[in-house]
């Protein structure tokens, strides 16, 4: 099984005619993802990598039966692209773009949450269900199919974690990059709910970072609603307050959003917290061993 995407998912690329969109569409095709077309307004009728390009998402859905989209549209137009996909009935919208204005996301968030679609991102590496479907920029080869559900606010830190898990023989059911922005389409809680309900997921690994209270809220949810073993790592213990650490959402402000607070909340919920980023895979093993006893 898996969550969000699988071998049957039919994927569009919005922004396919751009350099980055095309490059990553190629990567997904090579992984075995069912890429079925692309959308770039004004370029309808063209072909990229053997895939048909459409002017609108609506037409693309009609002609290809697409039910997911990977968005590589520039930040000024990303909100519009997301809303177009939702309007066209795309179930899974994955926005890779970094640099989307926060107030644009405020407007989009409300609409998406009231729709039948799921938005992942923006500013995320994407989603991968190993050996079935990759929608995003992650290196496919480090992933193995298996029982661990992975969720993370970061890109390369996720690859480190997946690498550790795969080397320990712990494959992944699905890996979801939430994105580094302050307002993103899918939360840790949303994903805990999905992984808890997924028969193929036996345990869950979560990577968070400074800024906001998403991890604290997730910890409270896990305590009451998640029975599967959970391990976590929080990046940014060394981060000073008030400074944005790369990600738009990674900032300790007003004393809130520190790594220490997050770690404390996670531990209080019975979650195994890795002290070091080198320890994430091992923390997952410990959490699973504890649950077995």
């Amino acid at each position: 099984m898996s969550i969000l995407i699988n071998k049957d998912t039919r994927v569009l690329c919005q922004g396919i005619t751009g350099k980055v969109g095309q490059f990553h569409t190629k990567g997904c095709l090579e992984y075995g993802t069912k890429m079925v077309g692309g959308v770039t307004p004004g370029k309808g009728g063209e072909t990229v990598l053997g895939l048909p390009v459409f002017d609108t998402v609506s037409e693309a859905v009609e002609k290809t039966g697409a039910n997911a989209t990977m968005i590589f549209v520039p930040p000024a137009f990303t909100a519009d692209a997301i809303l177009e996909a939702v309007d066209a009935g795309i179930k899974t919208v994955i926005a890779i773009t970094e640099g989307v204005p926060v107030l644009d996301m405020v407007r989009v968030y409300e609409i998406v949450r009231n729709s039948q679609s799921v938005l992942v991102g923006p500013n995320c590496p994407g989603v991968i269900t190993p050996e079935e479907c990759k929608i995003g920029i992650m290196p496919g080869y480090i992933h193995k199919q298996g029982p661990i559900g992975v969720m993370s606010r970061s890109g390369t830190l996720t690859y480190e974690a997946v690498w550790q898990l795969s080397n320990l023989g712990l494959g992944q059911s699905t890996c979801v990059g939430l994105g580094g922005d302050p307002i993103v389409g899918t939360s840790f809680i949303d994903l805990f709910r999905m992984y808890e309900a997924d028969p193929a997921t036996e345990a869950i690994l979560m990577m968070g970072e400074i800024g906001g209270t998403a991890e604290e809220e997730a910890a409270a949810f896990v305590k009451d609603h998640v029975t599967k073993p959970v391990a976590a790592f929080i990046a940014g213990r060394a981060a000073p307050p008030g400074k944005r650490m790369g990600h738009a959402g990674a900032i300790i402000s007003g004393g809130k959003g520190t790594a220490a607070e997050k770690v404390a909340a996670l531990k209080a919920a019975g979650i195994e917290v890795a002290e070091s980023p080198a320890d994430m895979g091992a923390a997952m093993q410990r959490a699973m061993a504890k649950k077995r006893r």
Partner: protein
Amino acid sequence: MKIHEFQAKEILRKAGVPVPKGIVARKPEEAAAAFRELGGKLAVVKAQIHAGGRGKGTIKSNSAQHGVQLVKSAEEASKVAAALLGQPLVTIQTGPEGQTVRQVLVEEGCDIARELYLGIVVDRAAAGPVLMVSAQGGMNIEDVAAETPELIFRERFHPDAGLLSYQARKLAAKLGLKGASVASAEKFMKRLCRVFVQLDCSLAEINPLVVTGAGDLIALDAKMTFDDNALFRHKDLAELRDLAEEEPAEVRAANAGLSYVKLDGNIGCLVNGAGLAMSTMDLILLHGGSPANFLDVGGGANVDQVTEAFRILLSDKNVKAVLVNIFGGIMRCTTIATAVMEAYKTVGFNVPLVVRLEGTEVEEGRKILAGGGLDIISATGLTDAAQKVVKAASAA
């Protein structure tokens, strides 16, 4: 992006939000002229830096001089300006070195009956902008939030609908405002919410928001910061940026497409990806070392960027060792290894360099580093990398 108080007040004035009359001065004689032009019996001279706590803060070499001072004559305005201009002002937000004052705002005095707090942020949990008010004005709002959170009242609003009238009245009532002040407050709040959205702010804070003896509301201080991601659609705002208030290395890094934050330690870091970069800092700390910076070289990391990154790292005199930690996904380890070698040669390292590579083409990447004849220390895992670089830094 941050701006000065005087710039925020100009924006508010144009948006119809009441602010005191004020004139910027960059020389003592300009401060005297400003006092005369304002025409009042008194005025306030306020240091302009991108940091709060200026009233309590003092000049580094002259602890009797605060960052904000009431003056009663043009001569006094000139004297205070002279004591502030060109001097580092140390506040609870600047760090012990303080920040040099390059301009002062000379502002008309205000009849203060009450001091309130008013602020707008984009709240993540609410997934939207929230207006917060409190009767505890003129204080550190974080202390109020920590000790007496029940004294802060909040209303979330939709960016396009704006703050609704009943919301403004609700908050006015919580603040104990009566009579004409309620209408004044409603206008103030709505206009501030509107300008917050129009200009894509991250923060708009009025502390204190003054209620005058006559019951009018006026912004005695104003702090506005803007969403960096939205600056592309506010070219006029981007012009307000004061590079002199920013850390030079951070400005240089941003110009090179690097994400860099200077810290206090002695181990320089170069990493791909913000989460991994933060984790690398944490890793160093965990192993007894002290990171000198955060640096995310991003998904590209070509020779030029890595060279510039090394230059920036090494321009920090505190740096005693450097750690390059790369997980190559789309980016190949061979690419980064070649870039590191080229940069190493160009820049000329005088401190130990530890490189940890993992991911695509890692074996070939490691071969390139080993075969180059350069004194680069190769590490095989995160723990190994941290131990090696901490050891190298303490041996220096």
